[in-house]
């Protein structure tokens, strides 16, 4: 449990994962991992990713998702310098004496973040290393991974589908 929590934290996936279900039977051996996550909206402009509060000459930028914080800070620092931009909270950035319209138009990254790459990395970190025979199914927003040392059996796939998680 601790490993899963820590891996989600390391990969900054906290805001994107709704739930994770792990079934483990070492004597078979079999692991079924179900991850329900939401895809990132493909937006790169700061005005689409945050809300803004004006306080005197300063602007407080409150980002909606933690995944954007590092890119937003990097973009703001390179444009306005470190003297004028400061991170004041987990999701909050303070910009001093900068025109709010200029801030809103900042593009924080050139490419969209591919969340699936991070989800795959998370799966690799959670699953035991020796379970190298894998079968993956995408069911709506849920990704199901069945892993074992032996060839995957039909009954395991059926079992994976049967597992219901109350949301």
């Amino acid at each position, binding site marked *: 449990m*601790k*490993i899963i929590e*820590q*891996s989600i934290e*390391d990969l900054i996936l906290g805001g994107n994962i709704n739930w994770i279900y792990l079934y483990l039977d*070492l*004597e078979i*051996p079999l692991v079924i991992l179900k991850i329900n996550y939401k895809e990132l909206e493909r937006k790169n402009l700061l005005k689409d990713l945050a809300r803004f509060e004006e306080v005197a000459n300063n602007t407080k930028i409150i980002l909606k998702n933690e995944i954007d914080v590092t890119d937003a800070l990097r973009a703001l620092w390179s444009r306005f310098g470190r003297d004028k931009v400061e991170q004041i909270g987990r999701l909050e950035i303070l910009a001093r004496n900068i025109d709010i319209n200029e801030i809103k138009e900042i593009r924080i990254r050139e490419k969209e973040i591919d969340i699936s790459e991070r989800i795959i990395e998370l799966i*690799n*970190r959670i699953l*035991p*290393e*020796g*379970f*190298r025979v894998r079968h993956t199914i995408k069911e709506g927003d849920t990704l199901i991974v069945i892993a074992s*040392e032996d060839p995957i059996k039909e009954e395991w796939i059926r079992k994976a589908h049967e597992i219901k998680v109350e949301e």
Partner: protein
Amino acid sequence: MLKYIVFEGGTYKHEKLIEFVEDIGGYLIQKNIVGLDVIMHLAIPEEEFDNLNKLVIELKGKIREAPLIGTEIAVVAPSLSRHHLPHPVCDIAENLRRHGAKTNIIGLARGVGQKIAHITKEERLLIEEHDIALFVLGNFEYCISKFKSKLFNDISIPIVVTGKPDKLILPNVNGYIGGVGRFSERARTMDMINKLNEISEFLGKIAEKRRREMDLDPLIVEPALVKKEIERQIPEVNEVLSPNPVTLKIDGIRVKLPYNEYKDKIASMEIEGKKLIEIANINKSLMRDYILIKILPESFFA
């Protein structure tokens, strides 16, 4: 028998301590000066401990016993993947180094899984070049007890295993330390640091036991003396960039110089009136092409 000690104190008058150690037939194994502090690894005859302590009190320094000084330990992980590195394997190795050991991390090519886990002959021989092997295994009791013992069954050096289950009885190992297992963040809480210290202390006891056993049939010369002579007679070794270019082991030395180029020079070195080749086996290490020296016991010449 020699006693291995770490000295921590100021640089002021620390030469006096080195002089004392040399006078009583001891050895300075390693010296690090950090700012105004000096940390030294020393080996002294057991019976001189009280006299050394008096001098250390006079110099306002501190000493602690560190039986892991002069040992080379293999920290073995089932693979070199994210599952094992940097945590917990590097944390454990770092703590061992704090206790004076020289550590090498070895990741097996196919040590993971249940039925697929195995160790190759080359890996086994590489591990056997060390004094003690520490296998860092995972969280599941079923996997460790049923499948992992084949990794260390045929290894001839002392084996210690760590894993998550609190207690486990494993065949052919010198000890099992539970409560470690897999973790993915740095071991920084008091509980975890205490656990790392427990591992280092346990390995220290094994090193001490092995030295006591060897004391019944001691080596013809102390490895610390051979180390000192290599550093004196082969000055090229002082220019090697690898850490600890002359690594002390319980029954020998690892010299981090190319075997083909230096084997003859090392073999013909004179130590206490004898050539090194007459009192030791000199072989090529499986690690890079380093030189491995295994000193022979006195009974070999009886």
